[in-house]
């Protein structure tokens, strides 16, 4: 994945005295979401990134065909997630007994007594929120990829997808699996099921998909197309 690290940031204060009367129209300005620094962004070429000069937050990083790729990768992730939910995840053998568990079992283990809340939380963090985020991205970006008008309520749906990002913890779950494997290694024999590999693939695809995500481009496109 090669992308030039060229910085295409331009400061508005560089050219003219920062007097409100001399500012370009607000449509041409961008405020850094992290530190509020004001920029007049030129059209950033595809494949390069514009970073904030002060806090180095990536302002925009448009990529060629990004919308189509995100939709396809999110679609792949949905299929992998469905496979990961229902196929056996881990298989454990000890004292002649074999126990197969799917991700649903992991979620449902807490489902009785005081642990119901934890069952819901774990289910939400590793299955529901990632799945909801993939579906939300497909809903918002598929019409964009085809060049159509945005779907109904695309703005709140995309905002929700952004909010869900820190709470979808599929990659953390994988590390948890690795730790659990080592913890029971002395107790029993363990083997990995197909769902585990589906889950690993899902985590990798999500990571690739996030490199194509450019919030500014998506928000701008949504705004332009809905007019």
């Amino acid at each position, binding site marked *: 994945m090669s992308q030039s690290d060229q910085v295409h940031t331009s400061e508005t204060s560089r050219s003219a005295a920062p007097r409100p009367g001399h500012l370009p129209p607000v449509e041409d300005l961008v*405020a*850094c979401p992290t530190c509020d620094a004001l920029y007049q962004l030129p059209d950033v070429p595809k494949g390069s990134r514009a970073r904030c000069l002060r806090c180095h937050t990536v302002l925009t990083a448009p990529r060629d065909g990004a919308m189509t790729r995100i939709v396809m990768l999110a679609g792949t992730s949905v299929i992998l997630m469905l496979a990961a939910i229902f196929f056996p995840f881990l298989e454990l053998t000890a004292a002649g007994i074999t126990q197969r568990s799917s991700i649903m079992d992991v979620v449902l283990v807490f489902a009785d007594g005081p642990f119901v809340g*934890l069952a819901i939380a774990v289910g939400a963090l590793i299955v529901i929120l990632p799945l909801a985020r993939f579906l939300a991205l497909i809903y918002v970006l598929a019409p964009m990829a085809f060049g159509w008008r945005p779907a109904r309520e695309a703005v709140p749906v995309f905002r929700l997808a952004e909010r869900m990002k820190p709470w979808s913890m599929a990659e953390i779950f994988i590390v*948890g699996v690795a*730790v659990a494997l*080592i913890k029971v290694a002395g*107790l029993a024999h363990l083997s990995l099921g197909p769902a585990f590999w589906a889950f690993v693939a899902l985590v990798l695809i999500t990571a690739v998909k996030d490199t194509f995500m450019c919030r500014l481009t998506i928000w701008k496109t949504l705004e332009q197309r809905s007019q």
Partner: protein
Amino acid sequence: MMTARSAGLVGCPNCGRVHDVPAPGRCQRCGWRLPGHAPDRSLQRVWAWLFAGLVVYIPANIYPMLRTNTFGRTTESTILEGVVDLLHHGSYGVALVVFVASIVIPIGKFFAIAYLAISVERREMMQVHARHRLFEVVEFIGRWSMIDVFVVAILAALVQLDFAATINPGIAAISFALSVAFTMLSAQSFDPKTIWLDGDMRPR
């Protein structure tokens, strides 16, 4: 450095769209709540979530995380005992991962968020870059504390071998999960802009 606020404009904290003053309550592009209407209470939310996280972190360390039953004998282990167990097994690498994820990161996060909130309250202008980097690290790394909760869930789902071995979650799993969630909410309530504020742009 000219900021949207110092230019008399309002920038959206989510999508960066710039609005003229008086700005609408919500961003016209993405609908995010824009600052500047109500007095800024983000620091109060930061402290509230941080204290909530701290309170539930105490039982998370005192009560057992895992209850293991092998051949009729039940042993309970707290978070720290789980790490010591791994050391006895000789899995030093994994012990280190669990130790960092469930002890170093949560405690470090409490201090880091408190330090950031205090430095904003005191209107310190020193080391803004270092503090911003610290905030990014806290926001990125905080979710990884959830590892131990997932380990408990996986173990309890897997190891249900009747008499030979059963593993059940302990009450600390709940309070630890809550603690991680509360400190994540605390970090999310923190407005990184306040680190960079200068002159007229401070909270309150």
